[in-house]
């Protein structure tokens, strides 16, 4: 099954913004008025981008996470001002270290004119990877949000300008085109065809009249100019929420836990709502999620040379739901793998050995002592359904708890049909960050759906 993992990683958007270089850029400029910049008569801009950047420059920030004890940066990203009283938007993943370890890290900003100051974390939105921070100064010009409703409001192909400080090289403006909402994504993301690079995370992407359409968040590795934005509407509502709260939360670690629990509850409810469809595998049928935010890949070993002595036909469906929680913790994946394995000329014992070898490869990765407890497992022969139309199963169950998030667990289930010595269906389920009882209920439902094809 291991080649599937290679494909899976290809399909995962990778978060940007994790660079650490010493700052160098220095410049100064006047503070612009409000939002819509107008061409100046004295020095007429030669391009739209020049005009947009000139207006945006005083509203841009570089946001740096410093190790408190050393006073040096450990992570840099971007941000932008959204109110006269010094509120700015950035990505959650830019400020995650401060949110999770406030004793070890602190935040600082650098404006385009070189001025620096302290930032206070006001609010986070884990699900949409957003955060609101407050500057230690007020009165600077700020961005307004584009109020056109998505996804139809901003047409595909509209020219957008993304800004930020990539790789600590200095503030930069990038032209690109808007390509609507990413299809089959659980989290709403705008597809921006432009070069977003590490360090630009949290920076604004604006229309030609300077209104914010989205927040730079990620790029697809191994591809060209495929970048992703958080729709500006989420930033606007987080800003409204931050303003409404009289006092910001003091313990963002607990806030992360609360938001993660709420996010996963919605995710698993939507998974159940979407329903499952029975997919045939040889003489068996097994359930796959009907939710549109699953990407499925198939794989076979039948074309291998030398001819395999047992054929494998596997389908893996992964949800596009990875959620960034910390630099060393991304969770929220739901995965279904069903493999139909049939002996070509192996006898019963050899076929069993073949299965053993396959399974030894299939337990993915180690575990982090920081976030998870060790796995606890159980296995048995199970009669998984009340109906008569189902094979006996050998089921293994492994779970580990999230140490800091109550009632969240990662669960692995593997079920192997036990009705034949020459062909089996191996079903693997993986639920990340799920409630224990919800995980059991879901597993029970899915195991009952592993049946002989009708």
């Amino acid at each position, binding site marked *: 099954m291991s080649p599937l993992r290679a494909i899976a990683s290809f399909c995962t958007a990778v978060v940007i913004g994790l660079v650490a270089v010493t700052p160098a850029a220095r410049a100064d400029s006047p503070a612009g008025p409000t939002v819509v910049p107008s061409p100046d008569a004295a020095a007429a801009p030669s391009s739209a981008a020049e005009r947009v950047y000139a207006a945006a420059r005083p509203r841009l920030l570089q946001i740096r996470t410093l190790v408190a004890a050393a006073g040096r940066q450990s992570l840099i990203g971007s941000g932008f001002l959204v109110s006269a009283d010094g509120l700015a938007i950035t990505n959650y993943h830019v400020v995650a270290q401060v949110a999770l370890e406030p*004793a070890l890290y602190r935040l600082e900003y650098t404006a385009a004119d070189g001025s620096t100051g302290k930032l206070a974390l006001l609010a986070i939105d884990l699900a949409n990877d957003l955060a609101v921070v407050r500057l230690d100064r007020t009165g600077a010009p700020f961005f307004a949000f584009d109020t056109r409703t998505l996804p139809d409001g901003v047409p595909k192909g509209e020219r957008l300008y993304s800004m930020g400080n990539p790789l600590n090289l200095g503030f930069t403006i990038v032209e690109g085109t808007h390509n609507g909402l990413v299809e089959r994504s659980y989290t709403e993301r705008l597809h921006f065809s432009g070069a977003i690079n590490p360090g630009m995370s949290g920076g604004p992407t604006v229309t030609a009249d300077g209104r914010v359409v989205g927040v730079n968040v990620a790029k697809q590795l191994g591809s060209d100019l495929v970048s992703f934005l958080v729709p500006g509407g989420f930033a606007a509502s987080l800003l409204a929420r931050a303003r409404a709260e009289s006092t910001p939360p003091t313990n963002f670690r607990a806030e992360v836990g609360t938001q993660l629990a709420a996010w996963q509850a919605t995710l698993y409810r939507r998974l159940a709502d979407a329903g499952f469809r029975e997919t045939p595998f040889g003489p068996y049928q097994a359930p796959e999620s009907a939710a549109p935010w699953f990407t499925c890949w198939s794989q076979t070993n039948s074309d291998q040379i030398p001819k395999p002595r047992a054929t494998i036909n596997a389908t893996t469906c992964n949800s596009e739901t990875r959620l960034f929680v910390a630099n060393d913790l991304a969770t929220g994946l739901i995965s279904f793998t069903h493999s139909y394995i049939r002996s070509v000329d192996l006898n019963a014992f050899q076929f069993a050995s073949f299965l053993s070898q396959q399974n030894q490869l299939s337990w993915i990765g180690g575990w982090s002592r920081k976030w998870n407890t060790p796995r606890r497992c159980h296995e048995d022969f199970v009669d998984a359904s009340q109906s008569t139309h189902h094979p006996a199963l050998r089921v293994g169950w492994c779970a580990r708890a999230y140490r800091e998030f109550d009632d969240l667990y990662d669960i692995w289930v593997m079920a192997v049909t036990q009705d034949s010595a020459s062909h089996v269906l191996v079903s693997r389920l993986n639920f990340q960050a799920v409630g224990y009882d919800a995980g059991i209920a879901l597993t029970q439902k899915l195991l009952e759906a592993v049946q002989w094809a009708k």
Partner: protein
Amino acid sequence: MGEVVWIEVLSRHRDVIARHRCGDDVVRIGRAYDNDVVIDDPYVAPHHARIVRHPADGLIVEDLGSLNGLFLDREQHRRDRVALGDDRTIRIGNTRLRVRTADHPVAPERPARAEARHGILLAALIAATLALAPLGEWLTDTAEPKPSRYLLPMLGLSIIVLGWTAGWAVLSRVFAGQAQFERNLAIALSGVVGYWLYHGVVTVFGFGLAWRGLAPYEATGMWCLIALLVFMHLHAIGPSRPWLKAAVVSALAGAAIAMNVVNQLDPLGGVDQTNLLRNFLPPALRLTGLRSEGAFFGQVRELKAQLDRDRATEFNETAAATQAPSK
């Protein structure tokens, strides 16, 4: 005296190295050539001792004024004279001597059949090894069938078994005077066959009863088997002090097993990560009934309490660690 006595020179391990037949009244022992029993030991005097028959005490050995003296075996203080009843061994210099009279009882003749049986046993063990090794390979062979896949492990196994046997044979030759190659080979081969049988039983029960906990402790039985094997080899070298040998071997095996168990119980060792649904056998070898879905998930539910305990215990540890640097 007239009566014949045998003077036996013994090795450190109390095996007879040389025997001297003496019929005189006085038997003189020393390094010089005018003795009845000549001993080539630089720590023995030219005229070291003599054996005489005492009317009351029977045979007596007397020190003839040597520098290094006369000792009873294993004793540390020298004696001038020692009565030689009760199969006593004496020590002069670095040499041990024993005197036996002609009426000393000997063990009855051993029937030749027993030796033949050993031969049959050895042949049976060799045949079992030669049959089981390729069988095991064949049952787990999932790749292209190639003769080398069968020959290579056989070759490796042969080298290991022969090396192990040769090692024990050399030890046996050094300490017991004879290599006993066949006997050591039989012990080694019974170890190999015993391991296969044991492994087979563990595998079948591990799968058939869904005892996931069995596999990590398979090594325990293996250590016991190795200990038994080593004991049998030691016993073959010399049958003396079996309890001491058994104790030493068990202590070593016990230490190995304890280390293995501690490793497995270590919460960070991750027993559970490695051995879930690892060993499959044909479904016909299921030895237990099917668990109902309710019962299975009931047991799965019990893991939750365990996980929550893990979370509680370990969280405190990290919480302390993360809070340490704060002011």
